[in-house]
């Protein structure tokens, strides 16, 4: 929990972090998680997203879901900036074991190592994990 919570327009502003841990199409967690993230933008909170484990695949560019018969929702990550959701943290170790570099991602991200990610999580008021 952060020690001080900013007050804005009479309301509380908390640090929300949405933690994405799953590959994009094998389960619905990534898609429905993204729906919560977009809604959260309307509440004027301090929102960030973390991508760890297979969640790093959510950001991969060049996704083509035609053969899966599922909607390709990856363009939504590029639209997050328009919702003032710009803090995207990706765990370095999760990228490394999957052979991914920042060049593979469709959006600009901040790479944090395991310990830095843990510290970032410890700063949050609310962690919602998908």
């Amino acid at each position, binding site marked *: 929990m952060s020690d001080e919570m900013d007050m804005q327009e009479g*309301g*509380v502003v908390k640090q*929300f972090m949405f933690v994405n841990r799953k590959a994009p199409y094998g389960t619905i967690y990534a898609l429905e998680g993204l729906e*919560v993230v977009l*809604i959260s933008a309307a*509440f004027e*909170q301090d929102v960030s997203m973390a991508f760890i484990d297979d969640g790093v695949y959510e950001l991969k560019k060049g996704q083509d879901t035609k053969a899966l018969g599922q909607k390709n929702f990856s363009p939504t990550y590029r639209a997050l900036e328009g919702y003032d959701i710009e803090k995207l943290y990706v765990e370095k170790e999760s990228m490394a074991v999957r052979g991914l570099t920042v060049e593979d991602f469709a959006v600009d991200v901040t790479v944090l190592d395991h310990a830095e990610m843990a510290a970032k999580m410890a700063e949050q*008021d*609310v962690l*919602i994990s998908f």
Partner: protein
Amino acid sequence: MKIGVLVNEGPYTHEASDSAYNFTKAALEKGHEIYRVFFYHDGVNNATRLTEPPRDDRNIVNRWSELGKQHNLDLVVCIAAAQRRGVMDENEAKRQGKDAHNLAEGFRISGLGQLVEAGIQSDRLVTFGD
């Protein structure tokens, strides 16, 4: 303490809903306030009154309804997740032209904003599910 609860898995397949129920019950017994229980992903299936488990098994849906009634709990089912999975109240069934509705007593259907709000208003938001 004011606590928000997020249930992300349906009944029976995962223990998550049982754990969420046991946690909620224990928290209430200790004198804590449950701000809201929010059902998301397959968690919306905890709200269908058409479940009929064997007699020697617990009835997870009824158990939530009863706890809700006893403590005047706000049991909220995400509308988008519920529509995907065929959980609807009478109004929604009418609106969608369906011939049946199945929302169990004590639950209400609402938007994802209710989850974000629970995060803002609660001292802790506790997640149950994968």
